[in-house]
């Protein structure tokens, strides 16, 4: 029998693979064999450990030492020093290990640290092994639901928990399920929206790459609650590793009898299918996504009827985001009251953020609802890069809002941000330092919308083209008096008249950038 004394976890996600993780993994396994340590050192793959842009990342347990920017050339020395002689290799150690706990709203580090909910297993288990998910308490929630809860009790528990849609719209998940459960019809569907396209957002990719079984279990619970037997995961076509891992996970769950007919000897049957998108931002809108799933152009549908009554192929359908569904197993396992101990009264739970841009350490984090922007940027992401000053942040992606320096202490949650005419959206935080040209940023946002406008409705199709014309003029220092008012007026009209949230939400980045940086934009016009 072999007795493993060290476990080396290697983070395999799209980012680390890009940095050469596979080559490092191979070099590591070869070197361990060369040193005759194969029986003593186990090399395990895991998802993202939360670092972004730090190259290939290894974690050596039991010490819990994080190594970053590792190359195959570093491996012989690393194996000799740490794994053979027991001396951590200082030059590669990551200065600050990512937090494996939730950042608490009271201020990071001061309160008792709480375990993570959505990212609990990310960067810890091997996402390609169902056994590791089960060992961490996986599939307990579906077991509990099938043996001791009625579907309406599952729905009720989710309602009580106050879980709201994490894709950005923050609609009550429990209510959505309840509508679908009560809708007439025998055939119902669960769709997981993994068409993550909001610029700056890649949390769903890292959840899928790091813990795909959690999503599967969340979808099963949703299926049981509303009476659906089929689920679809609509993933964007660019997410190759997510698709691969999820398909593998679904196959394993089928082998274990966790997907299929009469699951765990109950009367409940459920299966999940993966659908690959082909590049269209608008398909993140739930009815456009349904059209795309049906094999059509991804144009949004008129609402009502809402998908909960008439969705995929005209049947009642629940569309939930990856992060939303990944909250569900923990809520069913631990109860709504436990979930409500996180976050704020109006917005219980946590939020997964991707924090990027001009920060010292970009990353993937899970923070309690209500954590301040200041804590997220300065406590977690190491503050602004190169000691520069904070200028602003774009929260929630291109369809989000800019926040200025006086908003650093705002509590981040769905309800509170709305009071400041901002949104939490998908959870992307793009940080900009003092050197950022705000006209240039707004120009980039408007160009994005012109490209992604699907052309279905007139206000959005023509509005985005006009907005781009105006901002291009301003950026070229050829703006005229009244251009700023035109930006506001056009986007305001689009908010009132566009067919879907794409055109409606453009008002947010425009009005918010003017609120905080109007002086800078005016100055460009008067140059």
């Amino acid at each position: 029998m072999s007795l493993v004394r060290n476990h080396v976890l290697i983070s395999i996600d799209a980012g680390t693979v890009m940095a050469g993780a596979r080559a490092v993994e191979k070099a590591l396994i070869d070197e361990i064999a060369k040193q005759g340590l194969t029986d003593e050192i186990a090399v395990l793959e895991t998802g993202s450990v939360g670092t972004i842009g730090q190259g290939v990342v290894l974690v050596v347990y039991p010490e819990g030492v994080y190594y970053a920017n590792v190359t195959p050339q570093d491996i012989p020395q690393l194996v000799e020093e740490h794994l053979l002689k027991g001396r951590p290799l200082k030059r590669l150690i990551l200065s600050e290990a990512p937090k494996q706990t939730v950042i608490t709203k009271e201020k990071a580090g001061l309160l008792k640290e709480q375990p993570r909910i959505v990212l609990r297993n990310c960067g810890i288990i091997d996402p390609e092994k169902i056994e590791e998910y089960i060992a961490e308490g996986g599939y307990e929630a579906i077991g509990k639901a099938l043996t001791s809860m009625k579907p309406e009790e599952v729905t009720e528990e989710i309602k009580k928990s106050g879980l709201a849609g994490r894709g950005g719209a923050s609609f009550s998940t429990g209510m959505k399920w309840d509508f679908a459960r009560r809708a007439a019809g025998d055939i119902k569907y669960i769709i997981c929206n993994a068409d993550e396209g909001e610029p700056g957002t890649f949390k769903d990719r890292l959840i899928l790459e790091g813990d795909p079984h959690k999503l599967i279990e969340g979808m099963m619970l949703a299926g049981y609650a509303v009476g659906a037997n089929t689920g679809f995961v609509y993933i964007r076509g660019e997410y190759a590793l997510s698709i691969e891992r999820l398909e593998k996970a679904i196959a394993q769950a089928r082998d274990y009898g966790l997907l299929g007919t009469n699951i765990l000897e109950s009367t409940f049957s459920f299966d999940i299918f993966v659908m690959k998108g082909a590049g269209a931002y608008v398909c993140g809108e739930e009815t456009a996504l349904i059209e795309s799933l049906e094999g059509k152009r991804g144009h949004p549908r008129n609402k009502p009827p809402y998908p909960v009554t008439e969705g995929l192929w005209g049947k009642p359908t629940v569309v939930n985001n990856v992060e939303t569904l990944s909250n569900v197993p923990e809520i069913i396992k631990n109860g709504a009251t436990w979930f409500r101990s996180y976050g704020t009264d109006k917005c219980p739970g946590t939020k997964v953020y991707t924090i990027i841009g001009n920060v010292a350490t970009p990353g993937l984090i899970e923070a309690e609802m209500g954590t301040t922007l200041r804590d997220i940027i300065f406590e977690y992401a190491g503050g602004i890069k190169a000691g520069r000053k904070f200028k602003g942040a774009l929260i929630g992606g291109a369809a989000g809002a800019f926040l200025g320096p006086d908003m650093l202490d705002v509590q981040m949650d769905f309800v509170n941000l709305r009071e400041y005419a901002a949104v939490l959206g998908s959870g992307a935080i793009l940080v900009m330092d003092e050197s950022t040209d705000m006209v240039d940023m707004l120009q980039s946002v408007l160009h994005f919308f012109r490209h992604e406008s699907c052309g279905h409705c007139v206000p959005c199709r023509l509005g985005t083209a006009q907005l781009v014309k105006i901002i291009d003029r301003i950026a070229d220092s050829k703006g005229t008096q009244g251009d700023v008012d035109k930006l506001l007026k056009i986007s305001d009209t689009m908010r009132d008249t566009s067919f879907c949230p794409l055109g409606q939400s453009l008002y947010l980045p425009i009005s918010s950038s003017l609120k905080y940086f109007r002086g800078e934009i005016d100055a460009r016009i008067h140059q």
Partner: protein
Amino acid sequence: MYREAILKKFKPSLDNILYILHDLQDNNPQRYLANDDIRVCADYLKVPYSYVHSVASFYTMFSLEPRGSNIIRLCDSPPCHLMGSKSLLTYLKKTLKVDVGGTTKDGKFTLELTSCLGACGVAPAMMLNDEMVGNLTPEKVDAILEKRRKES
């Protein structure tokens, strides 16, 4: 015919259209959906040619024009923009001597823009065929292009 072999992998049901189009495009030597690709897909799914064309033209991952053997898709969404994708685009255009959407004379590269790839942690980023490349600089781009030029 390779096209028939591709079609056989899928049930002739409309919800498979994106999968079929992905597969047809990946196997077309010029990496686009030719008239023949659209025609066989339409016949197989028993829908009009115009229907398949309208779907194919909607999604940015599909091209209706022939492309080079390597496809560069540079991200120009706000996060990459903030980290300098604009100057990279200028550089790529200059080096490859093509505009966005164009293919180099030797047929080796097509330059495209894409919306956010979700690789914002290593911005600016691009996709080279199926591979993501991040932390781009002109030097890194040169090295990548040179490597691809030598291949094939």
